[in-house]
């Protein structure tokens, strides 16, 4: 095998390859990362096409099925929470809602909040990180200390408190829209320093490089240097770390829903389902297993993909 690839490489050695092509080749060889990426894409498709999937394979996520539940024990009838071709993941205790549909719909909330929050924190982190690293001096001190303050913030406690005091109507929003916006804001606004610190470090070292000096001596102004010289060189670490921030945010959203400060009932969320399942896990384990598995698989897939991406884009960091 090594002989073969050696030959292949020799045959194409003449062609020049861009950084992107090299990274893609590296990523293609990393089967674990590819599997992770495949799962991530599947999850995104599931979230987008949830209504279609549920229409074919399940029941509406809010629909009660009393007939699926033992009226005395309040536990789903049948084996392992009533798993059947009709109810792929079984039924929920008490009201008999379709666990499969709820897990599928739960992915929408989880991914939506995680992606939006990550975008917010990447935006804030990149802008502030680049400015801080490039300009240095008092600007750097100010932004770096701000990041320290944010990192020292008891985020979970703050999130619980904030979600508790925000009324039912705020900023012209109500219901689920308001809760989702609130979670995106809380998670995104308080996790930007993680990205910000990495970007700042990279910007610090980039700013001493010759091509920046060259640009500056040619008369380029700071905004131009930041946008056309620095940012393209920061794209790789930003991409990698935002991929790794997504699973953290998914877990954070699940934790908030578990604690009851996330999106409200009856909208299905993975964390909320887990929280309800704690009272039933001994007699209806399906109710805890499937949302738990969904969180586990999603977080693992994003992490594996993110790790692979990092190895591909920046082999030195390995």
């Amino acid at each position, binding site marked *: 095998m090594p002989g073969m690839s050696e030959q292949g490489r020799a045959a194409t050695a003449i062609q020049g390859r861009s950084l992107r092509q090299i990274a893609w080749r590296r990523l293609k060889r990393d089967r674990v990362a590819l599997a992770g990426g495949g799962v991530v894409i599947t999850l995104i498709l599931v979230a987008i096409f949830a209504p279609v999937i549920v229409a074919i394979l399940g029941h509406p996520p809010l629909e*009660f099925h009393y007939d699926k539940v033992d*009226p*005395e*024990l*309040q536990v789903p009838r049948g084996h392992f929470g009533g798993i059947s071709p009709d109810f792929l993941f079984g039924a929920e205790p*008490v*009201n008999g809602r379709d666990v499969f549909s709820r897990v599928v719909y739960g992915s929408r909330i989880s991914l939506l909040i995680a992606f939006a929050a990550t975008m917010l924190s990447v935006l804030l982190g990149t802008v502030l990180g680049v400015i801080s690293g490039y300009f240095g001096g008092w600007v750097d001190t100010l932004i770096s200390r701000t990041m320290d303050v944010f990192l020292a913030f008891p985020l979970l406690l703050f999130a619980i408190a904030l979600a508790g005091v925000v009324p*039912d109507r705020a900023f012209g929003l109500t219901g689920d829209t308001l809760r989702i916006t609130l979670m995106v804001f809380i998670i995104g606004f308080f996790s930007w320093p993680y990205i910000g610190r990495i970007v700042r470090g990279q910007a610090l070292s980039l700013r001493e490089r010759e091509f920046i000096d060259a640009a500056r001596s040619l008369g380029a102004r700071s905004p131009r240097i930041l946008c056309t010289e620095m940012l393209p060189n920061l794209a790789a670490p930003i991409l990698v770390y935002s991929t790794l921030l997504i699973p953290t945010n998914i877990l954070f959203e699940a934790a908030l829903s578990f604690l009851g400060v996330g999106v409200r009932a009856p909208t299905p969320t993975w964390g909320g389902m887990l929280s309800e399942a704690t009272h039933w896990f*001994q007699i209806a384990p399906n109710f805890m297993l499937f949302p738990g598995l969904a969180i586990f698989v999603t977080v693992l897939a994003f992490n594996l993909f993110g790790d692979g991406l990092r190895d591909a884009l920046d082999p030195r960091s390995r």
Partner: protein
Amino acid sequence: MGTKRPAAALAALAALLLAACGGPSTGGPDRGTSGGIHNPSDAKGGTLRYADSGDWDSLDPADTYYAYTWNFARLYGRALVMFKPAPGAQGATLVPDLAESLGRSSDGAKTWTYTLRPGVRFEDGSPVTSKDVKYAVERSLDKTTFPNGPTYFNDLLDLQGYTSPYADPDPDKLGLKAIETPDDRTIVFHLRKAFSGFDYLAQIPATMPVPRAKDTGSKYKEHVVSTGPYKFQTNELGKRFTMVRNPEWDPATDPNRRPLPDRITVDLNVNADDVDNRLISGDLDVAIEGAGVGPSAQGRILAYQGLRANTDSASVARLWYTALNPDVAPLDNIHCRKAVLYAADRTGYQRAYGGGTGGEIATNLLPPVIPGAKRFDLYPSPKHTGDIAKARDELAQCGAPNGFTTGISYRAERPKEKAAAEALQQSLARAGIKLEIKPYPLGDYTRLYAGKPDYAKANDLGLIVYGWGADWPDGYGFLAQIVDSRVIRATGGNTNLGIRDPAIDQMLDQALLTTDTAAREQIWQGIDRKVMEDAFVLPGVWARGLLYRPPNLTNVFISDGFQMYDYLPLGTTRR
């Protein structure tokens, strides 16, 4: 350890024999109030082991406010009056304990007189006098020292500014004018207003005598001086306490108590699931709170016939209900409230609380276990699943033929209330009534949110998921705090969540003047009916608790007075 196993085996064998010889336990959970005594026995001896998943609020009789602590307090103290230790409805009747007879009223139920039995002694041998009872009631008035106890004596006695015996200039600390002790065996209570059910107050542990010489204020709970058949041997606060027989207790003075075990141990702050598991494994005799086993143990017990045969289903004087808030439009219109009552699927409500094991479908307020309660259903529907046609009809009369949208609140820490809110959301949607579900923290539910009228109104809390239990099984004990419009405070902390009808207030006042029990029960029924006619409440479930009794437990029965096992007659075959 070696001797433990054969003992347990013997106990199991004894239980089997008893069951074979026509013991009353058969089939599923006994429907509690049927009146049987399980494992009747008068064999003395052994240790009875209790466990509590929380802490005792206080062993001090002045400072305790749970049904189970009142039930248990009768083992170490004698109040003027007590609930009869008898199965079923008999257990909700009052019998004299420290007093020779029930209270004698005069002055239109404003003055109540009791005569003490002769020969009752404290555990140190000193005689109990009416002054000890007066002192006990006096100290219970001091809510700074004893914050936990009920405030009925504070509200009803003609205090004339009296606050506490600890701030009493009288050298004997007996300065309260509202209680007279003309001699050592007579005690007279003077009330501010008529209160026909005073005997219910005389059974509160606060009337258990306390010797002034031994009173250490808030530290008295560390060593309560007993007048009952047991006295404290050890007492580690928050961990456990043990009790042994009190030799100064004279059975000749006490027709009600036949104490069987030689020792009693109570473990405190034991994990709730652990309590259930130890109960099932035979490591424990009684889960003292009497609230029934938790959901996971319930599943195990009901699924296994061998365990299931040892259960009782206790009817509790508690109603899980949803208040329909007339402050919130369009529920200010009675027809919209009636539409909710017709549209609701009561079977879903019942499922939310655990199905038949958790309680039976309620159609009015007063729980059937309360003496004199009568069932009726003003909003009937086939199989209690709701009548959508009638609901639409009421909606049309309300001027909202296509339904309306309002909020429904529940206590975030209560999964059953959440399930109830979700079930109502589903069933009311059938009539076009849309509910927005809003959780609030349990601790501040009545103080800041659902029980604060302006907050509830501003946040559209049209439906408020709630529950209420009686302080004692009687119409007043159940209704007073939830239907009297005069107790609604704008500042919050209300338990009356919007029932405002002057007619109901008038009936309450009339009931307190009525000393005839049967006539009084008629008035409670009238109030119940009026609330339902006004459509202020969507009754959900009359609660039940699934109690497990290990086979070694003897003389086991559910008393309607406390709606759990009566702790006075319990014995054990385990030696």
